[in-house]
């Protein structure tokens, strides 16, 4: 059983990776990381020597200045918290002898490109999943695919899982490419930089790798929802172009629409009001009554509906292609 499913995954992977478009996608991914790296490299001022020698005095001056300003900032809670965080982190640096970098570093670069590159990976995965489902109908290969001793549910699942494996592969490529480009542009010596996290008034030192993958994971919430929607549209309409166009449009326009509509209380039930979970960790939620639990529940409902509708259409409808 599991053996058979591994075979199905191998088949779907073969169909993804043997298409010419796969190489183009990976090339674009690496090319963009390289391009952004170059642009940042040549627009960042080089560190000055005084900054390297007297950094503790400079940090202390910064702390004193921030502390003086603090009482006057109580009105805006977010700004107030940011200042408190900066003070705590700077104090931690002086105490543990952790020099702040005066320019872009390898890890900061890896983190900086994550968001936009994952949007692009999302677009690619949408193309992969829509092609994987709809092209079988377009080309007529669906007939030979479905007359095997395998349930349609298993075929659909293998297509969905292989598309998500493509996302994982792309994330690994992104991580490795941005790490290498970051190193080339900003120096591999900054790879050992400490990652400082401030939470509940305490500063911790954590791993950058972990932090980057946490960011990847959070960014993938929106990606997975969009890809699932694309699979649903492809299964229902059996049309790849429609699935790609509609789901990418939703992914791009959704968050903007939600911002514009944020004064209505029903906006919180819209998918795109809930895909950005970072609104609960560093920022203000779209609407004050929204919580992390609420968003997860809304996401779960949308996800289940997408999967159920896509599954029903894929497994129940006649194949006339």
């Amino acid at each position, binding site marked *: 059983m599991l053996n058979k499913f591994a075979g199905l995954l191998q088949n779907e992977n073969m169909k993804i990776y043997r298409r010419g478009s796969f190489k183009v996608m990976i090339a674009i991914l690496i090319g963009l990381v390289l391009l952004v790296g170059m642009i940042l490299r040549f627009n960042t001022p080089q560190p000055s020597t005084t900054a390297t020698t007297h950094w503790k005095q400079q940090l202390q001056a910064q702390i004193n200045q921030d502390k003086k300003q603090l009482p006057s900032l109580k009105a805006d809670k977010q700004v107030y918290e940011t200042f408190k965080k900066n003070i705590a982190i700077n104090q931690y640096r002086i105490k543990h002898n952790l020099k702040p970098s005066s320019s872009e570093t390898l890890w900061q670069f890896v983190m900086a490109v994550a968001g936009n590159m994952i949007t692009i990976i999302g677009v690619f995965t949408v193309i992969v999943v829509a092609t994987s489902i709809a092209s079988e109908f377009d080309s007529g290969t669906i*007939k030979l695919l479905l007359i095997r001793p395998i349930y349609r549910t298993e075929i659909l699942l293998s297509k969905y899982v292989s598309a998500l494996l493509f996302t994982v592969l792309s994330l690994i490529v992104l991580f490795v490419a941005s790490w290498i480009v970051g190193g080339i542009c900003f120096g591999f010596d900054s790879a050992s930089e400490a990652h400082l996290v401030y939470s509940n008034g305490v500063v911790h030192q954590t791993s950058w790798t972990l932090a980057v993958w946490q960011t990847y994971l959070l960014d993938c919430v929106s990606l997975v929802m969009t890809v699932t929607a694309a699979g649903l549209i492809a299964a229902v309409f059996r049309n790849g172009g429609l699935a790609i166009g509609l789901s990418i449009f939703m992914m791009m326009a959704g968050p903007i629409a939600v911002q514009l509509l944020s004064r209505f209380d029903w906006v919180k039930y819209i998918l795109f009001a809930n895909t950005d979970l970072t609104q609960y960790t560093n920022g203000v939620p779209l609407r004050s009554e929204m919580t992390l639990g609420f968003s997860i529940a809304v996401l779960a409902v949308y996800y289940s509906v997408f999967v159920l509708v896509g599954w029903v259409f894929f497994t129940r409808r006649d194949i006339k292609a």
Partner: protein
Amino acid sequence: MSNNTTTDPAVRLEHVTKKIGRKTIIDDLSFEINRGEVFGFLGPNGAGKTTTIRMIVGLMRMTKGNIYIQGHSIRGAFKEAIRQVGAIVENPEMYKFLTGYQNLVHYARMVSGVDKERIDEVVKRVHLENSIHDKVKKYSLGMRQRLGVAQALLHRPAVLILDEPTNGLDPQGIHDLRHYLHQLSREEHVAVVVSSHLLSEMQLMCDRIGILQKGKLVGVETVNTFVNEGGQTVRLTVDDCAFAAKVIKDKLSLEAVLADDDTLEMTLEKEKIPVIIDTLVLSKVKIYAVVAVKKSLEQRFLEVTGGKSVE
């Protein structure tokens, strides 16, 4: 392959009906196809041949009725039923960006018991050894048809269903296929189901044919009965046609028409042929040749379906 081979027919249709919207596309089809025979589906365009095949392989649901493959219902026991089937439905569409070999590996992974040797064996059978590692997009129609047959044979099915298999094949390819289908049915007891517009082809290829018209089964018959029903046509080459025709008319009350300068043609029951020869000989007519004209399936088909054009 199955324990039921001896008791159950390879394919059994029971009151199969398909409606799309209000239109009845297939109307109450019931018949059986046995192992070891080549069964042909015959019918004009839009008769419902492809639709029937789609229902047999589970691509379409039936509105009413049931289909059993080696005793397993395609509705209730899909995996058990479909495991016994290899098929091409309409055109043999394969993944164009993969090689022929990769396509076969793809389908081999979806069933159990197909190893590398089996793939090579099937490739040899359809004579694709030289191009199996080329991308399918470079294949000609006939090569794709061969690859289609190869994927249908991979798992040694008990039922082989080919929708218009000769489409795109050259004469040699058609000959090879016909020979191979015969061999499969005779030696490996495969039930072979074909549909084709090439009626003369069907005549050579099939043991029995089922005629579909507007979704209804007009008849299931062996090719021989089918062709010969409605009388045998004979041609007589004689010295004096006019006299011979007169003798036949006067003594036997049968009509003979002039087919050639020295040849008469008539259609009659087989048993009458020696009677005519006796009568002519007694009347001193010199007979140079008696030829039984095999009526083509096409003529017969047009008779049965009411003279509607086929192509």
